[in-house]
């Protein structure tokens, strides 16, 4: 039974694309057939983050317009044979696709893959409406900032209105030291407002920037703490019960070790 997820946030820059890439790679490690769909037409990024930009020949608009077959537009990942990308068009606009076409597309992908992950554009306009039109479930990303949480709340309301029930929350870019000092919202503060199930917490990590620029998801990087968080999230998606990472303690040891080595 395949599942179609949309990864959305409302606010831009909170990590939708990074999360999509990492969950996709993470699920592929577990031998699932996964397709990532970039619904951000006109501002596509997922291909760049996956390091597949130079392989694009056809895109999602070509598929819905019937310029090519669906299989022709799917780009196989460099590392995992069972991971594919359906790239967005860069020179078109959001209205090049409509919700009915997206729904048809999702249904076609359902037959071929175990997981369909749709990378939603920022905003609540046409692109968002397209991205959520054919999905079963939603993953809402937010960062511990009031503006991002506000937008996530709005998105959850819109998802409910579109009958996408029980979205899951990923709190991204959290900094345990700042939370400890009381300068940043803690997970509890965010869940108190949003009141949805938590899928995971991802710490702010330099390795994300490095892996994004290299075009390689960090989920396979055993050293990366964000990678560990995404591995945990992947296992939770697969139905396992994995406790949340204890960020504060781990970070303490890491910082102490760093201090020791710097001395």
């Amino acid at each position, binding site marked *: 039974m395949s599942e179609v997820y949309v990864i959305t946030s409302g606010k831009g820059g909170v990590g939708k694309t990074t999360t999509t890439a990492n969950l996709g790679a993470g699920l592929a490690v577990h031998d699932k057939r996964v397709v990532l769909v970039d619904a951000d037409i*006109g*501002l*596509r990024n997922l291909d760049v983050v996956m390091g597949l*930009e*130079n*392989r*694009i*020949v056809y895109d999602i608009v070509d598929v819905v317009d019937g310029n090519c077959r669906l299989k022709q537009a799917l780009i196989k990942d460099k590392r995992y044979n069972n991971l594919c990308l359906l790239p967005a068009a*860069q*020179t078109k606009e959001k209205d090049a696709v409509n919700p009915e076409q997206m729904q048809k597309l999702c249904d076609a992908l359902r037959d071929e893959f175990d997981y369909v992950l749709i990378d939603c554009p920022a905003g609540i306009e046409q692109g968002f409406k397209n991205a959520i039109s054919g999905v079963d479930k939603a993953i809402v990303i937010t960062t511990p900032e009031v503006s991002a949480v506000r937008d996530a709340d709005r998105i959850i309301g819109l998802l409910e209105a579109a009958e996408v029930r029980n979205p899951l929350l990923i709190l991204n870019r959290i900094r345990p030291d700042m939370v400890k000092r009381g300068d940043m919202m803690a997970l509890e503060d965010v869940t108190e407002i949003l009141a949805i199930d938590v899928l995971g917490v991802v710490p702010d990590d330099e390795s994300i920037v490095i892996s994004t620029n290299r075009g390689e998801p960090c989920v396979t990087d055993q050293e990366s703490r964000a990678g560990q968080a995404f591995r945990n999230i992947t296992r939770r998606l697969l139905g396992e019960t994995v406790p949340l990472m204890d960020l504060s303690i781990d970070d303490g040891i890491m910082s102490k070790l760093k201090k020791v080595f710097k001395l």
Partner: protein
Amino acid sequence: MQAKLVYHNAVILKGRRDGITISLDPAISFDDLKIHFHRRVVETKQFFEGAKSNVSFTGRKLSEEEEQELLKIITTETSLDVPYVAEQGLFKPPNPTFIADTSPAHLPHNIYNTSYHQGGLRSGQSIRYSGSVVVLGDVNPGSEIVAEGNIIVLGSLKGMVHAGCTGNEECFVSGLVFWPTQLRIANIITYIPNDKKKRTPSCAYIQEGQVFVAPLVNQSYT
């Protein structure tokens, strides 16, 4: 005295901006003319020296062999390089095979209308044209140029480019910083590997079904 004057005017050379016009006396025989012509060319050798110029004959109807004979005199006696001969002051378009013989590198003879663009392309912008495209500016990643003819970018080329999109394998792509995201010529799709080399001005073309990227200038200059 009188005769000499006539002889003197039998061949008159005139320099023009776009070449040399040689006016010939129609009244004398070709053999006589040839002698005068030869003398005149030798006399005015400096006039031709080191020039690369078009030559046109006026005043007299010449057969093809006659024309060739006169040209031969010029080329053997002087260092003038004659790219082509114009007729009656109207210049013939250069013969493509002739260009191929003299230019240092052979470019396939494809003729397209050209669309010129001032200013670069940013991500998401695209140019599609049923001919060649020249961009005076940078072509950034995420932008695309699709042309039926050639593509020349006077700036850095980092977007997607497709030359000869209707299938002409003779089309080429050129850029000053040559690093297209993806490079397509006719039906071949390829990309430049990220090998961290310096990107020099280059030209990409198809030879024997393969895309080659050649530097435009000698590596040692850059």
